[in-house]
């Protein structure tokens, strides 16, 4: 099994929102960032992987197994962090851990205790008295303490200070060095992605706009800046998105070679776009 | 220019944590960013201003009024956004608004409708049907729609996509064009603060490390980098924290100009970002 996650043709409809034909894959031992504007469907995809909501069509394979047929097998090897962690508010950190750990055969209590110390979690404090960031840290500590082969993290750095974020990202990077663990995480913080993601999947309004590796983006994506000639029909198939600004026209292409050839000789500027620019560019298009 | 908010000698003790003598002021027409590691006390400060928790000592003056003696008046001019928006889950956004709007004499219905549209919020949907980001946006719309003079926000951008974050920051900058209004917000996304804050207050372990103009901080604080044998840590003036490792020595100083004068070409000097400052003060070794 060389793929940690395979999603194909996923479909889920809510009133006023449709997750439509979502497909992407994550090879084992790598990290994928799931990005996109609010309401794009990132949390829905994660909930579908966890079978918290029922899908209407499509397949999901985690660690080589079907996510419905082998749900228990998968979940015992899967660590997750929800965007708003839900714990019993009147239980303490310690009690929560003993509740959760019972479900995982590979629970490593020594590891958990070490994480509690490193993260600065007060073991005897009730969850209701913890700040939001601390609850996040608890969620992370639990997810990292049972030798999970697949980590599913929904906005794991939300509410965490930059110092802790930096260390967390280093820790996650180190985790996948063994080639066995894989991570899918959704985030809005592009600087985190820069540090961490090997692959990126961009969702918008329930559809996958692109899903590829960072290398591919670096090699194949270009930001083209020029004048109104870029709006012409002949260039349409080249560009993923085109924007008119006060200063001219900007376009994003995922086929650098073709673009270079097609635009040879025109007065255009070709730049490698930063992740931020890509996100901004693609978030707003209708 | 007077201060829209003055906090002095604020104290609050919990089991295992204490806010010690926190004092700072937010001038009118400015944006103040509140930074600090998780658990440093930022949310505690915000809650004390809003009297959600009781202070043990100190004063909080908003619009020149004591926040306890004039609680209703003060709160009618504050727009608040907390890090977890809590509204009744089974009620539609419009109904929630109709319950809350009458509390604010300066409520601007047109502004609210415009914000709903701009933020792309489904007005008739129940609150629980919204994604986290949309819930935050709704809280924001409510806070801005009553023309608040002080906008007080605890981690307002957590969970918001970068495009909306940018728009929000733009909106906040636009807000303070009216010299009477100010914004105080705590955030972990220090890059956002570097972009728009006028002042920064850094809280660490319940105490204020500094509260000054952002430009001043970014100009006078800096990083000193050198090989481990080239300089002594004690030589660095204004040392606030340092790290040693395979790369040599990296130190944070609050007076990089003085460091440059003292150490000259023996070291390399660099700007310190807010994140660097937080990092070295929280995690670095000792101070001189």
């Amino acid at each position, binding site marked *: 099994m060389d793929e940690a996650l395979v999603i194909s043709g996923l479909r889920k409809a809510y009133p006023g929102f449709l997750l439509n034909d979502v497909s992407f894959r994550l090879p084992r031992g790598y990290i994928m960032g799931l990005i996109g504007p609010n309401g794009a469907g990132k949390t829905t995809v994660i909930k579908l992987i966890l079978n918290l909501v029922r899908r209407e069509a499509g397949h999901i394979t985690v660690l080589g197994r079907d996510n419905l047929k082998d749900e228990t097998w998968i979940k015992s090897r899967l660590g997750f962090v929800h965007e708003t962690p839900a714990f019993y508010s009147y239980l303490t950190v310690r009690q929560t851990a003993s509740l959760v750990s019972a479900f995982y055969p590979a629970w490593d209590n020594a590891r958990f205790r070490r994480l509690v110390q490193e993260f600065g979690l007060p073991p005897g404090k009730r969850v209701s008295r913890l700040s939001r960031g601390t609850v996040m840290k608890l969620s992370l500590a639990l997810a990292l303490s049972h030798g999970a082969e697949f980590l599913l993290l929904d906005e794991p750095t939300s509410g965490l200070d930059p110092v802790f974020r930096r260390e967390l990202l280093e820790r996650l990077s180190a985790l996948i060095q063994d080639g066995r663990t894989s991570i899918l995480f959704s985030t809005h913080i592009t600087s985190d992605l820069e540090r961490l993601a090997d692959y990126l999947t961009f969702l918008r309004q329930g559809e996958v706009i692109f899903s590829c590796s960072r290398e591919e983006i670096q090699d194949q994506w270009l930001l083209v800046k020029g004048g109104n000639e870029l709006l012409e029909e002949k260039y349409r198939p080249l560009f993923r998105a085109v924007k008119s600004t006060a200063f001219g026209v900007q376009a994003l292409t995922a086929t650098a070679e073709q673009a270079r050839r097609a635009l040879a000789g025109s007065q255009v500027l070709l730049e490698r776009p930063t992740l931020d620019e890509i996100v901004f560019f693609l978030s707003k298009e209708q | 220019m007077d201060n829209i908010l003055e906090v002095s000698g604020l104290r609050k003790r919990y089991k295992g944590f204490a806010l010690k003598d926190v004092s700072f002021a937010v001038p009118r027409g400015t944006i103040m960013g509140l930074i600090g590691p998780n658990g440093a006390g930022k949310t505690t400060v915000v809650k004390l201003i809003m009297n959600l928790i009781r202070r043990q000592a100190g004063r909080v003056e908003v619009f020149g009024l004591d926040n306890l003696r004039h609680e209703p008046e003060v709160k009618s001019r504050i727009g608040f956004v907390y890090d977890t928006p*809590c509204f009744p889950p089974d009620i539609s956004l419009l109904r929630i608004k109709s319950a809350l709007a009458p509390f604010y004499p300066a409520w601007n219905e047109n502004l609210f409708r415009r914000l709903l549209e701009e933020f792309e919020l489904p007005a008739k949907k129940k609150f629980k049907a919204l994604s986290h980001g949309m819930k935050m946006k709704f809280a924001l719309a409510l806070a801005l729609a009553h023309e608040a003079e002080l906008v007080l926000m605890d981690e307002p951008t957590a969970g918001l996509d970068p495009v909306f974050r940018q728009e929000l920051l733009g909106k906040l900058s636009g807000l303070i064009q009216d010299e009477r209004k100010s914004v105080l917000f705590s955030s972990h996304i220090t890059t956002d603060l570097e972009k728009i804050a006028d002042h920064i207050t850094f809280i660490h372990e319940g105490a204020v490390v500094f509260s000054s103009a952002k430009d001043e901080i970014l100009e006078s604080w800096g990083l000193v980098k050198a090989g481990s044998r080239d300089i002594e840590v004690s030589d660095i003036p204004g040392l606030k924290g340092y790290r040693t490792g395979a790369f040599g020595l990296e130190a944070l100083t609050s007076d990089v100009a003085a460091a440059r004068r003292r150490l000259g070409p023996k070291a390399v000097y660099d700007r310190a970002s807010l994140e660097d400052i937080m990092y070295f003060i929280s995690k670095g070794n000792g101070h001189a």
Partner: protein
Amino acid sequence: MLKLIRKELIFNRNNLLLILAIMTAFLVYFLARAETFNSPDSPAFMMFCAFYVGASLCVTLEAREDRGKTAALTCSLPCRRKTIVAARFALTWLLMTAGLIYATALAALLPFSRISLNQALNLKFILVALLILTVVFAVFLPFTIRFGVVGVIFFLVAAQLIGLIALFLVHFLKSGRAEIFSPIGSAIRGLKFLVGPQSTSGHLVLVVAAILALNAASLFIAQALYARREF
């Protein structure tokens, strides 16, 4: 204060409608079958229920807010904590009065009702029911404020356990029977007296005074507790 009451009504609209539906079903059934409850006091029971719904609602609303964490929202609005609590009390009385009017209206208007308007609007019944309920919510509202939903559940469970233990003890220590039940017995006898033909308007004035005093005390305590509460 009105704004606060309005806010509670809007925020709890669904809850209130549901309770209205249940109450209506119950009252309709009760009114239709009242003759089979072989007791001249049965209208009192109906009144009691009508009030009870109103009284318990206020505790429920407080508990819901505690559970749903919307309390931070309420306390961030431009009003004093004292006013918030006063509004809760006012809302309770509002709901109880509404319950009374509703039950009476149903009794008078439903064609198959076996209880007439006169029977329903018995002042003694109304006052005694109010007294009992005032005691109930006068204790419960401050209690919920201080101890939250979890506290109320604890209390109810504990009260039941204590009741069970008391019954067992009485059963096994037959001699203790009279002592344990006598305060309860005298309370019931007192209430029956007030409701019966022998009580005078003097007694009723005392009842009204007791109701007012209990409310005032409870309000005072509840306000003090709420002012200290931290979110």
